């Protein structure tokens, strides 16, 4: 399994890498993101917020080199991903890209998300959720993806057939057909396909017991998920929301919350320490 921090460091130019390696060990262990903004000091995001990596601003050349490393010097081969605002780099690292998107020189900021496999993310959760669907909620950066990955791994290793929709290549980080993260022995992964389309394909082709997908938001995705639940599949999914009450106030989620697709809500509360609260929908 990859060491997410090392994979993230491999994307950095020499100067930035040295600065990142100079961080205290306990900080390196909890870095969630590296933020590189043109002409501004680079920062790392940890539990306590953003802290500067060095006083000097990030140069255009440094941003270009990160993109060179993330794209294998082939920006043209990932234009579709770039249009969606992110890149999946080797080792399961996701790079968020801001700028006008036309070329590497015009990129204004990059967000390198450090992937972590955290079996302890399941601590405090019930041993089993039974047959009901599970919806994981938290604001951005709360650890939804990590928790979903661990839930998938647990159920899969128990022998349940799991189909995993990995639209952004972040959940399983498949590289040359091999998931870079442990997502369990009975998991089938469909990567880089829009969620609604992926759900239909997986239902037809893989007959899953559990269907897992990250960051529900588009009406088309919500509809696909309801359709899957109607076929008797258990859904595990994540959504950006501060909590269940906040989600209930969003109109597009009303039908999904009322029709029994999801039975359990796992609300992640940002720490430190980070805690999970399980509610019944």
């Amino acid at each position, binding site marked *: 399994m990859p060491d997410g921090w090392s994979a993230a460091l491999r994307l950095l130019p020499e100067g930035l890498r040295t600065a990142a390696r100079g961080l205290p060990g306990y900080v390196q262990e909890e870095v969630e993101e590296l933020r590189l903004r043109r002409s501004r000091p680079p920062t790392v995001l940890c539990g306590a917020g953003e802290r500067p990596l060095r006083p000097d601003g990030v140069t255009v050349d440094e941003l*270009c*080199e990160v*993109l*060179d*490393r993330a*794209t*294998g*010097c*082939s*920006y*043209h*081969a990932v*234009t579709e991903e770039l249009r969606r605002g992110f890149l999946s780099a080797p080792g399961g690292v996701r790079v968020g890209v801001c700028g006008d998107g*036309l*070329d*590497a*020189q015009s990129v204004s900021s990059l967000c390198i998300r450090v992937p972590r496999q955290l079996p302890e993310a399941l601590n405090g959760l019930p041993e089993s959720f039974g047959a009901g669907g599970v919806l994981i909620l938290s604001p951005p950066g709360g650890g939804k993806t990590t928790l979903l990955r661990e839930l998938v791994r647990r159920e899969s290793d128990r022998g349940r057939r799991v189909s995993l929709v990995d639209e952004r290549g972040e959940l399983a980080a498949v590289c040359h057909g091999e998931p870079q993260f442990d997502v369990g022995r009975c998991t089938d992964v469909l990567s880089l396909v829009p969620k609604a389309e992926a759900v239909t394909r997986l239902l037809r082709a893989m007959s899953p017991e559990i269907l897992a997908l990250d960051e529900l938001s588009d009406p088309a995705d919500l509809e696909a998920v309801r359709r899957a639940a109607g076929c008797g599949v258990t859904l595990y999914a994540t959504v950006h929301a501060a909590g269940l009450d906040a989600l209930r106030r969003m109109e597009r989620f009303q039908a999904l919350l009322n029709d029994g697709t999801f039975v359990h809500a796992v609300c992640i509360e940002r720490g430190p320490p980070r805690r999970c609260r399980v509610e019944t929908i």
Partner: protein
Amino acid sequence: MNLLYLRLCGALLVTAAGGLGGHAIYAARKRRVSLLRELAAGLGRLADELELTAAPLDEIFERLRERPFFDQLSKDFDGATLARSWRRAAMAQPLDAGSKTALAGLAETVGRCGAGRQVKELELVRRRLDEAASALERDLAIQGRTLTGLGAALGALLTLILL
């Protein structure tokens, strides 16, 4: 009599050396024309590959390895420092300063933007190299015989001075 023969042989050799010197300059310029044509054709192939396949550059360079410039790039390719390798390879070419700069300038574009823009920039430099080759060829057509003749004449002049 022997001395006269020796002098005549010496005179012939010096004249021939002059002619050969002139021809060597001509041949070097001709080689530069070939190099310019070769590089222009390589850039054309790269543009075609980008346009038709949009494959990652390591794959494309692998397909272009029969061309020395791309063979070097393929060997140096590490997925991180292509701009540096490209610039280094461009500056190592025995070309005029303008052609070198144009070729090296592609380092900022190749692999760093969408295929459309890369193709456009490659096409511009390809045309520039082709034009430089054509101009050099035109000069050579005029200068070729002149250079050889001038070399021989200089050799003859030197012979007269030495005699």
